[in-house]
């Protein structure tokens, strides 16, 4: 009888407390894969690609970042500055990012038809509109699965900051759920001081012995999952320093900044260097209904230096060719400035910044009108973005996952990649 390894039920979500809360993910389970051998081979070619998302939570203003409209009725007080790519201007709030723009591109024509935080986060993370009763895997889970490093002890989908495990992998299974880290060694990952190497080894040997005997007669998907997770957790314990950003040099800690976002960007670099498939760093908060300009001044100042240093460092390490970097939000902000100097939610015409991997550098996709109130060229939907990200890291976004004999599309078939942006 064919095992139904995962049904996304609570029982299958690996509920061991404490020890597994932090890193009970990354389970290598057989029986799934892309639908064909050809696809699988194509997948192998992209094995060394990875993705970084910088998520500006709350909805960053496109006018104060990637699509400034100075001296218009919606432009606000900030000016536009040239970038290192002739002809591309961004907000003056991003002077350091402007210097590394030769590695980046813009999509300025997103229309997500949505002004709601939850729906917007879902659209950007899952590439679809949320539908009741239907669960799809998050972009990070898709990358963790399709770009899986079989021999890595590290989870394939890491979120910074965070704690514990997410439930974002849907039918891909808990192996591809996110794991949250915060720049410190994972909670409960150090062996208790009272245990010597010898005693520790003995207890693991004993566990394995019992486990093997149990498996002789009661082997199941669940037992394999638990066995795998224990072994992976042991591997993680040996590499717990990977999650400790204080191991980075003082110089780098100074360059990135001592604030949370600086530490988290440095942590992201550390994880990408360890070849984690998907890393997401969040920066809060951009939900500026009030005093949009003061708060963007404050937040973008914190964003600009560590983000640009991260791009520089990935470039210096030769990793930009294999690392897709995307700066996204759940939506943009209204061109209209409200009475409180705020901007409200706006999904009708907004932007993201991306670069690296197979993204053409220095490109601008789409256009908004003079005061940014609507898209006038090359409208792009969140579903298109999802396809584009996957294509940029070498995943065939028109492919399918084979889940218990069911072929489930990797991305929403109603959309497709922005082909002109892929090199």
């Amino acid at each position: 009888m064919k095992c139904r390894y995962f049904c996304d039920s609570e029982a299958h979500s690996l509920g061991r407390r404490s020890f597994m809360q932090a890193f009970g993910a990354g389970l290598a389970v057989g029986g799934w894969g892309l639908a064909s051998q050809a696809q699988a081979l194509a997948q192998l070619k992209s094995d060394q690609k990875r993705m970084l998302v910088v998520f500006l939570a709350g909805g960053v203003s496109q006018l104060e970042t990637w699509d400034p409209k100075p001296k218009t009725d919606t432009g606000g007080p900030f000016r536009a500055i040239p970038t290192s790519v002739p002809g591309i201007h961004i907000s003056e709030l991003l002077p350091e990012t402007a210097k590394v723009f030769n590695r980046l591109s813009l999509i300025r024509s997103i229309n997500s038809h949505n002004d709601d935080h939850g729906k917007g986060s879902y659209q950007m993370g899952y590439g679809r509109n949320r539908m009741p009763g239907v669960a799809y895997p998050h972009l990070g889970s898709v990358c963790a699965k399709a770009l899986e490093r079989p021999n890595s002890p590290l989870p394939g989908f890491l979120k910074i900051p965070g704690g514990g495990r997410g439930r974002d992998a849907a039918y891909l299974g808990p192996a591809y759920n996110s794991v949250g880290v915060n720049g410190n060694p994972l909670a409960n990952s150090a062996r208790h001081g009272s245990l010597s190497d010898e005693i520790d080894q003995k207890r693991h040997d004993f566990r394995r012995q019992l486990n093997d005997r149990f498996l002789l007669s009661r082997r199941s998907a669940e037992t394999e999952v638990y066995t795998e997770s224990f072994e992976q957790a042991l591997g993680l314990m040996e590499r717990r320093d990977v999650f400790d950003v204080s191991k980075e040099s003082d110089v780098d800690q100074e360059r990135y900044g001592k604030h949370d976002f600086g530490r988290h960007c440095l942590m992201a670099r550390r994880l990408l260097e360890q070849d984690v498939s998907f890393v997401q760093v969040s920066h809060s908060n951009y939900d500026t209904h009030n005093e949009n300009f003061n708060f963007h001044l404050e937040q973008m100042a914190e964003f600009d230096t560590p983000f640009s240093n991260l791009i520089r460092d990935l470039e210096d390490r030769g990793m930009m060719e294999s690392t897709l970097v995307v700066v996204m939000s759940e939506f943009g902000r209204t061109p209209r400035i409200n009475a409180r100097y705020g901007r409200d939610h706006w999904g009708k015409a907004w932007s993201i910044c991306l670069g690296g991997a197979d993204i053409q550098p220095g490109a601008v996709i789409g256009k908004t009108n003079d005061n940014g109130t609507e898209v006038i060229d090359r409208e792009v939907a969140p579903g298109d973005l999802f396809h584009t990200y996957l294509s940029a890291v070498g995943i065939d976004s028109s492919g399918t996952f084979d889940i218990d004999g069911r072929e489930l599309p990797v991305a929403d078939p109603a959309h497709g990649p922005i082909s002109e942006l892929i090199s």
Partner: protein
Amino acid sequence: MDITKTHIQSDWEVSKPLLSCVYHPEGEFVFTGCEDYCVWRVKVSDGTKEQLDCDAWVRAIGIADSGNMLITGGYDGRLIFWEGILSTPKIRKSIEAHDGWIRAIAVSPDQSLVASVGNDLVVRVWNTSDGALQHEFRGHESHIYNVCFHPIEPHLVSGDLMGQLIAWNIEKGAQERSWKAESLSKYDNGFRAQIGGFRGLTFRSDGQSLAGSGITKVSNAFAGIGNPSVVVFDYPDVEKVAEYLTKEPLRGVAWNVRLHPEGTIISGCGGSGGRLLFWKPGQTEQVHQLKLPSDMRDLDLSADGKRVAVALANGHLAICLMDEKSPS
């Protein structure tokens, strides 16, 4: 003057949402900064307008040279000295005064100096006659939101986002004292941002009191949920005298404050509708308020103390008479 009879005497549509306003000392004109990157000269009696293109948002406006010079400080960091302001305004001099926004300027009582402050954390004092830099004061650790001169002593006071106030002695070129208005600044842990600061800062004409205005009791910085507040200090003892709040808990920011020579504290707020607010000194319970047609963003008191000019978010300039309506 009867503040309980305060009413809008005239209401002039200017342009886009307004940012700031200053009464000309002769009372015939009000100069108002606008989101259209201009300052407008508006004739109080008939609303006639003259445009001064500043190429930046301007929230800092001052008048010097016995009413013949206008000084504007823009979000582009430029200080512009305008001449011919009662006829055809022209730029006499422009200075790259600050790195980043100029948030406020103040003209000295003898009109020989203008102080400017902004996001570069520096207080700079310039000659109004030739624009020469006279002093630079450093000591603030967050964006400086406001500045004002003492009417008698050679002091100026600057206030920042964190609620820090610093008094500077111009003759000595040094810091005189430093203190804090705790209630006017807060770090919102939920949104991870600092909110507050001195949106208004002014001395009483006798120099015995210093008032600052802003927002207090913030529960949600990014939605602007907090209450307008005016804090008044004794000077030079800087003992906090009182915090003046609205009778009903209005939402928003007290965008400026004026201390009337007769004692009345005048402020106004915007955030969820505009109000002009009045208190008597030492009597923290609000004595009167006037509902405005839109959120208020700035105010100024006329030199004769009878009127308040109010810059509104709907692009209108309202002139409020603090007395009963004339029979006509």
